[in-house]
Each structure stands twice: as structure tokens, then as C-alpha cells.
């Protein structure tokens, strides 16, 4: 067809879109701001609910994008793009101009900056870490505290930056619950002597095999789940973390000490995405993610003709959903390119 599509973002959605488009013979330029593709997937060691290694998914994505039809541009971001009558002109950070028939935005998400929840002391207390930090520990194969001792009691705080009016995020990131359950199990696997407690507001186990994983965590791994939003964290004299929470089911406030606290950071519109929205005039919703044209049958379509969305730049999604959403975007693009002929 001789068409050219620019895909912005080389994460799961971007790679899937690029791979699928090049399969049908469309020329693709894939723009990635980092030095390598993979996006947030690179931070994760194993995936829920089956705890397969994230590298397997990366292998798959690398496989479908190992294609001559894809022009991969790393360390590149978009400075500007303009819509002309039937094409777009895009200026990259390198000063290059790309002419594209369509654009797919796959800028993904950023993890909520946990330091914004000051009361949890991320970046202030020695042993408060985020889910991503924990994944890195898993990758390294060791879970240890700042002073190189092994934690015995680990707390996991759900909903950090999600469903929280105080940080301006009303929405549910929907994957942190199952991530917490997965990580709790992994901690217990790594440290069989440890005790793990999850503090949740609601257990949102809406995905396939999520509930089963939750049950496994309770039954097999003895993970305790306490319903209540942690209100504050402080450090004790022996460098433990004291949390205050209401055990809402007992109807009583509760205090508890931990060696390590893991914050389940939620998902937010990525910085890159915000930038694109600004320069391209793309509409965003109240949740700051890109607003799709229609929530039911136009979730890939933007307010600008020829610009499409794929993946978590529109809402929190797991990898399965991201890939499905990316494939749906491919269909929309092909449809669009056909019509514009």
C-alpha cells in the first residue's frame, strides 16, 4: 500500500502495533524515548497471574518487531506534529521530519510517584519501597533492607496513588491488587520465614485467575489481608516502620511494625503522553489519560482524525488487554488508511 504509520512509544502496545502493522506491509516508524524498547515491562521480573517471566513477553514482542519494515528510532521523542490535508508531519527531537499517513499514540503509563504520598515516607524512610523497587529486588534475586539484613515482617500497602482524591486520582489502577498478591507470594517464596500483610481498601480481583491467586496467597502462603487504608508511617528507634491503619472490619484502629513496606504504586498518564497531548491538542479525560472518542466502540480513536490510541495511554490495563487494545488499534488504522485512499 506504501503507507507510513508513526507509532509513538515502544512499550508493549507500541511494539505490538508496530509488529502487526508491518505484518500487513505497512511501513512503520517506531519512536521510543528510551535507549531500548519494552517500556514498563523492563521493570517487571515476573507477571501475574501465572508468574511467567516478563522476559518471555519481551521475547514475543521482539520477535514480531524483528522486521525490516520497522524503522525503530530510540532515544527519540516527538517535538511537534501537524496535520495536513491527508498526512502528518512530525518533528522528532533529533530534528528529523517524518511524514506519516497516520499516528498511533502508545505512550503508556508512568507509575505514580510514591513520594507524593508523603505520609508513607517513600524516599525518606530507609525501608519503604515501591512495587517496582521490589521487582528489581526479585530480578537481583535478593530481598534485603538498607543495612543488608533480611526482612522478617513485610507490609504491602495497596492503592498508593489510586482511588485517592488527595493526589487527584479518583480512578482505580485495577492491577495493583493482583500485583500485591503476586508479590506477596513471591516474597514468601524468597523468604519462607517471613510474614506478609497486605493493607487494602477493596480487593479488586477482576481478572482471569486473579481470585484464585488471592486464595492461593491466603491458603498456601499464609499472607494476611487487613482491610484499611494506611494513614501514616513512621520510623521507630530500631529502624522499623510503624504504621497506623484502621482495621475496618474489626472497627478498631491498629498499629503494627514492619521491617519493610512495599507501596503498590498506581498507574498515571505518562509524562510523554501529557507532552504529546499538549503539542497535538489531544483530548484527555478527568483521569488525565487520553480520552477516547467512544468508550464502547471507539476506544482507539482520538479527537483528531488519523491519530489513534493503543494501550495504557487511555486507561490502566494489564498486558493481555494492552495487546488486545493494540491489535484493535491496528484494525482501526488499516480501516482508516483504506478509506483515505
Amino acid at each position, binding site marked *: 500500500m506504501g503507507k507510513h504509520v508513526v507509532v509513538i512509544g515502544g512499550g508493549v502496545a507500541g511494539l505490538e502495533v508496530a509488529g502487526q502493522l508491518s505484518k500487513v506491509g505497512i511501513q512503520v516508524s517506531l519512536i521510543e524515548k528510551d535507549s531500548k524498547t519494552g517500556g514498563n515491562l523492563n521493570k517487571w521480573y515476573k507477571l501475574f497471574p501465572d508468574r511467567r517471566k516478563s522476559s518471555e513477553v519481551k521475547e514475543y514482542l521482539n520477535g514480531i518487531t524483528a522486521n525490516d519494515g520497522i524503522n525503530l528510532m530510540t532515544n527519540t521523542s516527538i517535538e511537534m506534529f501537524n496535520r495536513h490535508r491527508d498526512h502528518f508531519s512530525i518533528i522528532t527531537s533529533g530534528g528529523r521530519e517524518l511524514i506519516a499517513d497516520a499516528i498511533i499514540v502508545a505512550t503508556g503509563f508512568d507509575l505514580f510517584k510514591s513520594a507524593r504520598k508523603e505520609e508513607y515516607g517513600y524516599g525518606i524512610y530507609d525501608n519503604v519501597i515501591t512495587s517496582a523497587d521490589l521487582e528489581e529486588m526479585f530480578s537481583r534475586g535478593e530481598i534485603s533492607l538498607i543495612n543488608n539484613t533480611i526482612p522478617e515482617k513485610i507490609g504491602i500497602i495497596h492503592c498508593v496513588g489510586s482511588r485517592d482524591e488527595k493526589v487527584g486520582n479518583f480512578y482505580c489502577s485495577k492491577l495493583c491488587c493482583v500485583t500485591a498478591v503476586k508479590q506477596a507470594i513471591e516474597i514468601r517464596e524468597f523468604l519462607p520465614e517471613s510474614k506478609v500483610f497486605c493493607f487494602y481498601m477493596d*480487593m479488586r480481583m477482576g481478572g482471569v485467575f486473579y481470585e484464585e491467586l488471592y*486464595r492461593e496467597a*491466603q*491458603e498456601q502462603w*499464609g499472607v*494476611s*489481608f487487613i*482491610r484499611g487504608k494506611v494513614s501514616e508511617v513512621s520510623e521507630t528507634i530500631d529502624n522499623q516502620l510503624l504504621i497506623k491503619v484502621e*482495621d475496618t*472490619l*474489626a472497627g*478498631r*484502629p*491498629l*498499629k*503494627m*511494625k514492619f521491617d519493610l513496606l512495599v507501596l503498590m504504586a498506581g498507574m498515571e498518564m505518562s509524562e510523554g503522553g501529557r507532552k504529546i497531548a499538549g503539542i497535538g491538542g489531544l483530548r484527555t479525560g478527568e483521569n488525565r489519560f487520553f480520552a477516547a472518542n467512544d468508550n464502547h466502540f471507539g476506544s482507539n480513536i482520538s479527537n483528531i482524525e488519523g491519530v489513534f490510541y493503543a494501550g495504557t495511554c487511555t486507561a490502566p490495563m494489564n498486558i493481555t488487554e494492552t495487546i488486545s487494545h493494540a491489535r484493535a488499534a491496528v484494525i482501526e488504522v488499516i480501516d482508516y488508511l483504506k478509506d483515505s485512499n
Partner: protein
Amino acid sequence: MDKFGFTISEGRQIDYESNDRRIAEYIFDREPSFRLCIECGGCSATCTTGNFTDFSLRELNILIKRGENEQVREKLKKCMLCGKCNLVCPRGVNTRNIVVLAKKAFQKSDEYAI
């Protein structure tokens, strides 16, 4: 000592670290399904005793787990062991055994105390 017309209030906070959770451990060891409770309250809703009193197995489960044993001790006696809770539980928690074990554990802790 009511010297000033008031007394120093006792905290309501559950102090997890200083609470005695041996009763909970005793039950965990013998009835692993104790861990499976998701606090749905199905047991309390159908409870024969709950029809007459504020007895709630869900609440007792949680208080035992937190080591708030003194609140449990007396309430536990009210259970009639009829087993409706067992049938209702969506997680297959062996609720009756938990009650029986808790009773035993309290009995044992009393013996040790003497």
C-alpha cells in the same frame, strides 16, 4: 485514681506487636482454612446465635487473628455450633472447628495461666 475529676483514657488501638496471638497460631496450625476468611460476613448473617445477640463469627475471627483475645473469650461461649455458617461460607472455612479450637485454646491458656 480519680484525683482530678477524670481518668486517663485507655486506647482503643489494637497494638498488634504487644498482643498475644498464640490463640490464633494454635488455630492456624490445626485448621488452615482459618486463613481463607475474606470477611464477607455470610456466617454472621445466617447465624442462629446472631439472631439473638451481637455474636459475629466474622468479628471473632478477626479479633482472634489480631490477638484481641479478651473480647473473644466470653463471646465464644454463645456459639451453638449448629453449623449453618459452615454451609454458607463461600471460602470453605471450617468455621465450626475454629470455634471448637478457639474454645480449646482458651481452655489451655487458662490452664497455663494457673
